[in-house]
């Protein structure tokens, strides 16, 4: 294992110290327990957005804390859900009196830990709405599984709902916007290589030099198929077909197209993917109204990409275009 770390046990703490040193204008960092909060939290009269999950997906979630996006993020150990005490402390720290939305990616651990946290917060009188993100079309049979995983739509949800909260919209409406984003978004990922959790020291899964994992999850969970390497055009065709055929997309729709790098893929390849996606969608009569290209929800050093499509409406578009000032996303300010 070759990594720019000191000790596997210290990676998350030292990353937080780096974030604190780099962005004191945007965030403040708590260490007992771990969470990152907006520098100006709690913002009075604004619904607060709290998310969290295992580390290793940077810039998600800590890099999305700031004006126009999250109020707090709770980092767990690498690829391990954070704990209820972190979520409870973060919720209390950012609650500006208008309620708190917990944005939870649909993984067994995240769901259970956030559930316990919401129970603790409500028991102390906080108003908490929980929303679950489950946009990954690679998980086909949700009836017999833990359900679809939360992936790329999380980033879009945090931006769009964050803008709605910034406009002082009420708790119920902000939570409903989250649910709307989730129901109108679909994603699919693929891996060219595996990744190594620092504490584990060896790759999470084995993938041959000429193999790809189609439908991979953001923790290296297996996808739909393992196959021989293909061209970008063939790969995008498979991913986009799976997404578009899952609904809610149809001819004439306007979408936000999000081409995401898994952590080890250069931007040059992401633009090749975007070009293929643009051609594919044009062929289906779907217009890309907005786009996001880069590595925003990663899996350590995994090479590969994911594609997320969000069916847009006027409100989503205005909220997407609204100003945001975080370490990971910044425009309009």
């Amino acid at each position, binding site marked *: 294992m070759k990594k720019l770390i000191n000790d596997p046990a210290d990676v998350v703490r030292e990353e937080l110290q780096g974030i604190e040193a780099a962005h004191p204008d945007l965030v403040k960092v708590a260490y007992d327990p771990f969470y990152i909060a907006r520098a100006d939290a709690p913002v009075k009269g604004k619904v607060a957005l709290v998310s969290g999950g295992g580390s290793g997906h940077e810039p998600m979630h800590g890099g999305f804390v700031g004006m126009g996006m999250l109020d707090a993020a709770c980092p767990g150990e690498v690829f391990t859900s954070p704990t209820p005490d972190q979520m409870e402390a973060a919720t209390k720290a950012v609650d500006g009196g208008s309620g708190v939305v917990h944005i939870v990616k649909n993984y*067994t651990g995240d769901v259970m830990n956030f559930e316990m946290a919401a129970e603790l917060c409500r028991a102390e009188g906080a108003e908490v709405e929980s929303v679950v993100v489950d946009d990954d079309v690679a998980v086909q049979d949700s009836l017999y599984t*833990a359900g679809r995983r939360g992936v790329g739509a999380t980033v879009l949800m945090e931006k769009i709902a964050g803008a709605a909260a910034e406009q002082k919209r009420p708790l119920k409406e902000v939570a409903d916007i989250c649910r709307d984003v989730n129901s109108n978004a679909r994603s699919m990922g693929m891996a060219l290589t595996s990744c190594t959790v620092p504490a584990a020291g060896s790759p999470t899964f084995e993938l041959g030099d000429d193999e790809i994992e189609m439908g991979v999850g953001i923790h290296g969970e297996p996808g739909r198929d393992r196959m021989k390497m293909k061209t970008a055009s063939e790969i995008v065709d498979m991913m986009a077909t799976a997404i578009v055929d899952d609904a809610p997309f149809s001819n004439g729709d306007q979408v936000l197209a999000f081409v995401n790098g898994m952590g080890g893929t250069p931007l040059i390849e992401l633009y090749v993917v975007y070009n293929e996606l643009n051609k594919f969608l044009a062929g289906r009569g779907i217009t890309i109204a907005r786009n996001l290209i880069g590595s925003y929800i990663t899996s350590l050093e995994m090479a590969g990409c994911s594609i997320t499509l969000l069916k847009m409406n006027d409100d989503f578009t205005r909220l997407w275009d609204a100003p945001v000032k975080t370490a990971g996303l910044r425009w309009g300010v």
Partner: protein
Amino acid sequence: MSEEVSVSYDDVVALMKTYAAAIAENKQSLTELDSAIGDADHGINMDRGFQAVIGKIDTVTSGDIGALFKTVGMTLVSTVGGAGGPLYGTLFLQLGVATAGKDRITAEDWSAALTAAVSGVQARGKAESGDKTMVDALIPARDAFAAALTDGADLPAALRRSADAAEAGMTATIPLVARKGRASYLGERSAGHQDPGATSSALLLRTVADAWAGDASTTTEEAHDG
């Protein structure tokens, strides 16, 4: 007048220390099992949690077994993370609720505590028997313990049967297709691998049997039943 075997507060403390050592010893193998069908962190997370338990356990000096189990549960909830944190945390919290205020626990107490713990884990994780989870070791352990008592077995014998049943349940997860947790994403590909959660649960029941069924650690008291 009959003799009743029961477990003391110190026996429970000793159990937690022994289980923490067993988890540390099996950290790698649990993580390897998780690597095959999960996210390769079960042993690492459990070890982090039980090392924290070891740090906390001597600060609880109430002599109340329920309070001790609750401390273990809360410590696991706040240090393990993942799915294991809420699940093992709930297991020990429920053992604590069931044994609240007791300085010794009898076979009947343990049977009730196991029942509460298994119900708590199922309520939190929504898993049924056969989903390829820790429940597949816990349910047989609970049932075998209760059945042994019905058959007239004493505490040590019942604990051994409970541990045997947990291990059989653990082994029986190998051919199962996972329906809960990250392993469920594998679908048919999850068959052929032993569930890591069932493994750590079977290890817990075996550690309980070894710790409390041996003559050295479990004490015999005369029960005053009139």
